[in-house]
Every structure is written in structure tokens, then in C-alpha cells.
């Protein structure tokens, strides 16, 4: 088998070991040169003296703040309504009312973007980096808090993070509902502006926007700006997907490119799906089966000629499990049908991969699929 430079350096093992195993030859030489440059950028650290000095600063700050803190515990109140369909209500106002940040929403989203930890819970993060952890809250309701009347200038942004493997539903201060899919982050201001309502989405969300003609609702994504004229629609804008898409269920939305993605403003009608291929900057609008796009809000995945590679990426996100295929599986094979997401991932994979021909092995957060040797 002829390995190329990227096969040697791109492997899971430490690249150095991989290189050592490679037989001598031009490919190895090139791989070594590239490796030498990439690994040879180490810069000096702090050095022992500075490190000690910084340590002293850290410990003295900690002992100072420990004294102050006892007076300042009132910043967070958390009311939990228990019950089977528990609705967690967050008194985020108190919590959000601190912090001087006032920045455009996209920048706030950028700075709030927090780690989507493997074992992470659903989290709310304020502009001042305060974090609130909401364990398995089915609905996060931010609407039941009176809009503070104070006209203070500072308005902070909050980011709600849904890690891989989880989903949640949030009711925004204006009553609009958003279902957030696994691996998504939604950033919104503590108070909506008097002129317009703006949120920033990374990942996938289904929006049911409360009608308010005087305050249009905007959804920012890395590639799209969507102006909502009162409506229900789905947006998928995962950073690691090749596309950004939106599908309109009802009402009317207006679409506009952002940054590199420039195209004419476009009004979508119900049933329209707009798909932007990011790399090629190609926008396509088609009449599509709306159901398949929003099925995830009902714990189903509806596939319509979905390529295998895309299907595996979606399952990885939903189940927060890495799916490793021993052989290259980037075939042209596509799938149509309905998958029940309440089932364990191995059962779903058993539908996709014929068990006569493949072995599916479950490791901890990883599933390995191998072709059976005959």
C-alpha cells in the first residue's frame, strides 16, 4: 500500500512514531521536512522566575477575593420547578445584570463560545464569563421574567450551549421558542433591543418566533443573516458542515449573505429550503420536504438521499459518540427513510451496516465498524 504524506502525518498515533515506521524514500523525506517545520515552532515559556512571580500574584488574588466574596453571594438565584415535565426557570436577570460588555452580537457569540465538553451539561454563559449549568433541563424558560425597566446602557449577551448528545428547548424573553440540536450554541442579549430582536446561532435550531411587527427578529449565523417576518423555520449552521441551510415551515423570512457569502437578498416562501455550499459560495433554493429538516425536534431523523458521510456526522453529534470506520466509507451510497433516535446508536448502525458483512464494536465513546474478513 502506498501511503502519502498526509496518511503518515494525519494518523491518530503520535506523528513521530508514525514517521519512524515509514520505510525510507521520497515520501518519508517530504513528511519529515513538513514535520520538522510543524513541530519545531516551540517558543520559550515563562521561565522559572516569571513563573514564580505569576504564581504569587495568583495566590494573593485568590486570598483577597475569598474575603470579598462572602459579602457578594447574591448574584445568582435559581428556581427549579420540580415534576416530571420539570420546567427549569432561570432567574438569569439578576445574574445577567452585571458586566460591562456591550458588543455586537456576533462578537459576543465569539467570545462566549465555550468548550463543548464531552461530558458537558447544558450551560448558560454570560458576557462576563459567569456560567450557569443546567442539568438536563427539558425547557429553559426566560420569558417569565419581567423586562427590567431600567434604561441602563449596558446590555450583556448570554450564550446557551447544548453539548453533543443533548438537545434542549428555550423560550426567549419575547416568548419565541427555539429548539436547539446537539452541539449548538445560541447567543442572545439580556434584553432585546427596542427596534429589533437579534440572536446568533452556531449549530442547528428550530425557531418558532413570536409575532411582533414592530420588532423584526434576526438570526445571525456565520454565513447567513435571516430576517424573520413572524414564522417557524429551521436553521442548520454547523461550523464543520460544508453547508449552511434554512428551511421555512410557515410565514416568511428574508435571507442575506454575510461576510464572504454575498448574494442578493432573498425572500423564502413556506416549503422553501435554501442550502448554501460554503466552499463554492453556491446558494440553491428548492422546494423540499420540510418534515425531514425538523424531524430532530421529535427525536426522529428523516433521511432523503442523505449521503452516508453526512449521516454519520449527524449521528456522531446526536449521540456524542465517535464513529470510526476502518475502511474508507466515503462512498456515494445514500440513505432514505426514518430513523428513531430513541434507539441506541448501535441498533441504528446495524440498520445501516449489513451485519453479514460488518462487525460493529462498541467501545466507550466510540464505535468501530469493520468489514468482516471472508
Amino acid at each position, binding site marked *: 500500500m502506498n501511503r502519502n*504524506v*498526509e496518511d503518515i*502525518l*494525519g494518523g*491518530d498515533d*503520535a*506523528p*513521530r512514531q508514525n514517521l519512524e515506521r515509514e520505510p*525510507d524514500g*521520497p515520501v518519508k*523525506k*517530504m513528511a*519529515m*521536512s*513538513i*514535520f*520538522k*517545520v*510543524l*513541530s*519545531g*515552532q*516551540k*517558543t*520559550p*515559556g*515563562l*521561565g522559572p522566575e*516569571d*513563573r514564580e512571580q*505569576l*504564581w504569587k500574584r*495568583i495566590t494573593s*488574588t*485568590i486570598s483577597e477575593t475569598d474575603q470579598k466574596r462572602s459579602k457578594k453571594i447574591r448574584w445568582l438565584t435559581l428556581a427549579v420547578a420540580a415534576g416530571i415535565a420539570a420546567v427549569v426557570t432561570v432567574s438569569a436577570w439578576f445574574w445577567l445584570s452585571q458586566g460591562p*460588555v456591550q*458588543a455586537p452580537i*456576533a*462578537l459576543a457569540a*465569539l*467570545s462566549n463560545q*465555550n*468548550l*463543548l*465538553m*464531552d*461530558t*458537558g451539561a447544558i450551560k448558560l454563559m454570560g458576557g462576563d*464569563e459567569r456560567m450557569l*449549568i443546567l442539568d438536563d433541563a427539558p425547557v429553559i424558560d426566560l420569558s417569565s421574567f419581567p423586562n427590567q425597566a431600567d434604561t441602563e446602557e449596558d446590555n450583556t449577551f448570554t450564550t446557551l450551549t447544548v453539548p*453533543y448528545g443533548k438537545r434542549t428547548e428555550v423560550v426567549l424573553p419575547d416568548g419565541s421558542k427555539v429548539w436547539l440540536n446537539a*452541539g449548538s450554541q445560541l447567543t442572545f442579549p439580556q434584553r432585546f433591543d427596542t427596534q429589533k430582536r437579534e440572536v446568533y446561532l452556531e449549530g442547528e435550531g428550530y425557531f418558532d418566533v413570536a409575532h411582533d411587527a414592530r420588532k423584526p427578529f434576526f438570526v445571525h449565523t456565520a454565513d447567513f443573516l435571516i430576517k424573520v417576518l413572524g414564522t417557524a423555520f429551521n436553521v442548520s449552521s454547523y*461550523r*464543520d458542515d460544508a453547508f449552511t441551510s434554512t428551511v421555512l415551515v410557515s410565514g416568511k423570512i428574508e435571507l442575506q449573505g*454575510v*461576510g*464572504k457569502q454575498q448574494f442578493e437578498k432573498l425572500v423564502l416562501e413556506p416549503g422553501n429550503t435554501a442550502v448554501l455550499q460554503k466552499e463554492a459560495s453556491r446558494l440553491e433554493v428548492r422546494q423540499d420536504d420540510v418534515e425531514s429538516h425538523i424531524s430532530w425536534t421529535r427525536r426522529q431523523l428523516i433521511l432523503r438521499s442523505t449521503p452516508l458521510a453526512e449521516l454519520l*456526522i449527524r449521528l*456522531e453529534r446526536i449521540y456524542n459518540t*465517535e464513529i470510526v470506520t476502518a475502511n474508507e466509507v466515503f462512498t456515494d451510497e445514500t440513505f432514505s427513510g426514518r430513523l428513531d433516535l430513541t434507539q441506541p446508536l448501535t441498533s441504528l448502525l446495524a440498520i445501516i451496516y449489513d451485519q453479514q458483512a460488518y462487525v460493529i464494536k462498541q467501545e466507550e465513546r466510540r464505535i468501530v465498524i469493520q468489514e468482516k474478513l471472508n
Partner: protein
Amino acid sequence: MAGLTENTCWKDFVSGKEYAFRVLYDYYADRLFAFGCRYSQDTELIRDLIHDLFVDIHHYRPRLDANANATAYLFSSLRRKIASAVKKRQRHMELYAAFEEGIPFLIEWDIERMAIRNEEEAELLRRVVKEVNRLSGRHQEALYLRFTCELDYAEVADVMGVSIASCRTMVYRAVKELRKKLADIPVSNVLFIALMHSRK
């Protein structure tokens, strides 16, 4: 870290063992500093942010995830702090220009600190450096974390906020792009380059 892995130390720290705080600091301070300098040349700022980071984890200790990957957690937290500090400084910056690029990744790859055998090798490495510098910021960042910082894919993915699969693809594609750009060099004429620095 004498027989004690980073993640056990992290677990100890989260569960309240005071010794672990100092051990974590000693183990990570230099690495974090070197890493931070890739995003901002203001070394004072990076010092301040490392200070804030350790004050924060001490403060929020009861709420930290004991099973988190310590390296990934600390690197990504520092990265986030830098992003937010840089943003505050450039508040009037063009909204989307800033966003498109993510946090500007400043590394200017060079061959200054490398042991080079001869002019021929220097020539080749200069070409490599030139091409690496032309890669997209995200690709450069992924390569830096994977090769210079020696993080594994799971850690790189956490720091960059993408899935492990796409992180692996990113590294693979970046190296492939390099390989293609460098295809015109007659490698067979190049002297064999030994791996210079040994692992610590």
C-alpha cells in the same frame, strides 16, 4: 509529572486537594504562555489572562467537570479569554471581518529555532514554511495544536470547538494541501533529514 497524569491531577484538584493546584500550575504555566503568545504578542496580557484563568478555576472548582480533559480545558479557556480581551480592545472593529477570521491566529512560522544541516535543507524548509504560512488560519491553528503543542485529536477538537472527526479531516487536508503545493520539489535530491529534537 512524575508518574501522575494530568487528568488524575485535575481530578484531585476538582475534588479539593490543594496540592494539585500548584502541580497543575507548574505543569501548564509555560505551555499556556507559549500557546497564548500565538494569539497575541502582548506578553503582559497573556500573563494577566493566565493569572485570571488560574484564579477562575480555583474559584469555580466545585463546579468544574472532574472528568474533563485538563489540557483541552485549560487551553480552550485561555483561548476564549484571549478572544474576549482582543475583542474588548478592538470594539469598533468591523463586525463581520472579525467574525470570519475567528480569533486571529498570529503564528508566523519560521525556521529560526531549528537545527539545519546545510543550505539545501534550509532551502527546502523555507519552502515548507512559506506554504504553511499560506494555509488558512484554522488549518494553521489545527497544525500548531497537533504538532507543536503535541495535543491528541480529542484535545485539538475541544480547543477549537469542533468535532473530533472534522478536526482529523482538517489536519489531513492541511497536510495534503502542503504536500500538493510542494510537489514540484525534487525530493529525491534532498538529503535525508534526521529528526533533530528528541522527545522530552
